């Protein structure tokens, strides 16, 4: 019954939602109320009881307000070596005055784009949290990359979060990429303070024909952050979407990544690392939908889990009847460093076409003792030898990051974590 109380709390949030995007919000509200928060036995949230977590940790069901972020904040938060343009957010609210004006790219508040078909990509009916975001988000950002634009430098979406008293932050992002364009986004949030709060993010990406989008995301926020994210992209003909998600911290994190391959010769790539300690719980649910022939998807998620951390991986691949000549590959590998760490991994393939190449595999194991001994026998101390092996394990995913500075940054965070007592 207690979940119902939360539902009521969110319902009051719905009533207090901004008045723009009326039809979009109404649709989402109906969808949210029909779905409700995931119940304990909800298949999609079986191992990630986010409803209970919210129950325990969130005390104030009002949106966290924007706050003063300074240029100094930004300067000190940007990782070393970053060369690109920065868009700054505070509690999910876009701060134009601190953000770069990027030549040729339109960036505006969502509230200025009231005709947008929000929710047409990340449909509210698929997930209660996506519906909740759509019904109640405060404002968001609209980013449009024109046709034939090679955006050489990455765009950093840098969010500062400071929600005292367990409030809600609901970023909403709409990205459009024109035909024949290429762009790289880096999505990073910084927690100011250690308090508990709930982030419920939705990112929709509408790619053009022959477009190439790289979406990199690092989750290294406060230990008490509860987060649900939904990133969904439609991938058109001759286009690619590359996602790399690195999760290093948080209380309970659920990432929904949905790629819809809607044009032939399109490619969706999903890569991820979750390197967890303490009691951090990270759940990656990915869904790739092959609806047309001659498309490809590749997926590799790797988990390293210490202490009492928990990792969940669920990878769905749908190959529709028309999607002949599909190539779909999926792999999830995990190393448990502690007896108390847990992984639940579930590949889920549904294939209706008959001329396809699909493979999947998952492993859960310990560090290779033989390899460890080999390194020690050459004079390398045990801790460092473990670090070398785990770093090599993660390296296969890290190398998918094409932006060198960001790859090195993630690498250094991972090395630092592996080099310490973990």
């Amino acid at each position, binding site marked *: 019954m207690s979940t119902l109380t939360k539902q009521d709390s969110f319902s009051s949030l719905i009533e207090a939602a901004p008045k723009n995007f009326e039809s979009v919000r109404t649709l989402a509200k109906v969808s949210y109320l029909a779905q409700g928060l995931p119940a304990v036995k909800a298949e999609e949230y079986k191992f990630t009881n986010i409803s209970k977590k919210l129950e325990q940790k969130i005390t104030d069901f009002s949106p966290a307000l924007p706050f003063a972020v300074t240029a100094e904040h930004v300067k000190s938060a940007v990782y070393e070596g970053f060369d690109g343009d920065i868009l700054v957010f505070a509690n999910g609210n876009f701060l134009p005055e601190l953000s770069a004006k990027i030549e040729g790219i339109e960036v505006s508040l969502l509230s200025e784009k009231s005709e947008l078909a929000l929710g047409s990509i990340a449909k509210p009916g698929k997930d209660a949290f996506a519906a909740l975001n759509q019904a109640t988000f405060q404002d968001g950002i609209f980013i449009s990359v024109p046709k034939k634009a090679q955006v050489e430098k990455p765009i950093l979406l840098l969010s500062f979060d400071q929600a005292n008293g367990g409030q809600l932050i609901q970023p909403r992002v709409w990205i459009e990429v024109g035909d024949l364009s290429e762009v790289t986004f880096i999505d990073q949030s910084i927690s100011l303070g250690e308090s508990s709060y709930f982030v419920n993010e939705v990112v929709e990406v509408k790619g053009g024909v022959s477009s190439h989008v790289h979406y990199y995301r690092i989750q290294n926020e406060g230990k008490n952050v509860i987060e649900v994210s939904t990133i969904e992209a439609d991938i058109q003909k001759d286009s690619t979407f590359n996602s790399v998600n690195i999760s290093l911290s948080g209380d309970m994190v659920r990432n929904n990544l949905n790629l819809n391959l809607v044009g032939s010769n399109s490619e969706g790539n999903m890569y991820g690392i979750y390197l967890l300690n303490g009691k951090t719980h990270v759940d990656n649910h990915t869904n790739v939908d092959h609806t047309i022939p001659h498309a490809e998807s590749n997926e590799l998620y790797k988990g390293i889990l210490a202490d009492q951390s928990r990792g969940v991986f669920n990878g769905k691949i749908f190959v529709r009847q028309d999607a002949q000549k599909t190539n779909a590959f999926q792999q999830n590998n995990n190393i448990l460093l502690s007896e108390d760490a847990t992984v639940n991994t579930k590949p889920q393939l549904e294939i209706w076409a008959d001329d396809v190449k699909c493979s999947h595999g998952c492993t859960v194991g310990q560090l290779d003792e*033989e*390899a460890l001994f*080999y390194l*020690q*026998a050459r*004079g390398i*101390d*045990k801790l460092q030898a473990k670090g070398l092996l785990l*770093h090599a394990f993660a390296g296969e995913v890290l190398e998918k990051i094409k932006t060198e500075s960001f790859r090195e940054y993630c690498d250094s965070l991972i090395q630092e974590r592996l080099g310490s007592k973990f």
Partner: protein
Amino acid sequence: MLSIKNLHASIEGNEILRGINLEVKAGEIHAIMGPNGSGKSTLASVLAGREEYEVTEGEVTFKGKDLLDLAPEDRAREGVFLAFQYPVEIPGVSSTNFLRTAVNQVREYRGLEPLDAVKFLTLMKEKMKLVEIDQKLLSRSLNEGFSGGEKKRNEIFQMAMLEPTLSILDETDSGLDIDALRIVSNGVNQLKSEKTATIVVTHYQRLLDYIVPDFVHVLYKGRIVKSGTKELAMELEEKGYDWIKEEVDSQATV
């Protein structure tokens, strides 16, 4: 240099070594031979510090220190080197980075300055010649996709880089063709000195044509049952191990 006294070791409750006694002095080469399952590789593993083996009795001192008390990495830093029978493939760990980490950790323990990139590469180039190893191999992940012979050469190359005082070659010859055997043996011979010692564990006498031992020991059922000089190895080559087995087994039944 190395003194093994009444060494007993077991794995998962099965006793494999049942009282080994062996003295190795600087400048010496000892060959340990014996039929399959006699405990040869176990002895090599126990000396290097493999954790699955439990030492139940006896002692091993190396340059006056209690070897069994040291972690595997400290044994290596003290100067014990085990050339693995089955070198491990480690994807994602570059051969060069691995070696540089190893060399510098060993140097640090021995109170030497770490080698910078240039000095390290110079040393590497010099030692590569010893075992005729190709630079291309070393730009790959450690042992990944190496042929059997390449792996064994890489072991000797690592040995050359780490400059141990006691090298234990665990069946380094098995699976090698004559050419590779010659290269590997050349490397070992060039590395030996008055200050170092080598223990060659092998099933076949063939290797000992290239690496000539001062002493040959026959291991059977976890004990050294016969010791001699290189002539013993020749005799084993000719007559096989059965006569030794019979000799030992008949004594046991008496």
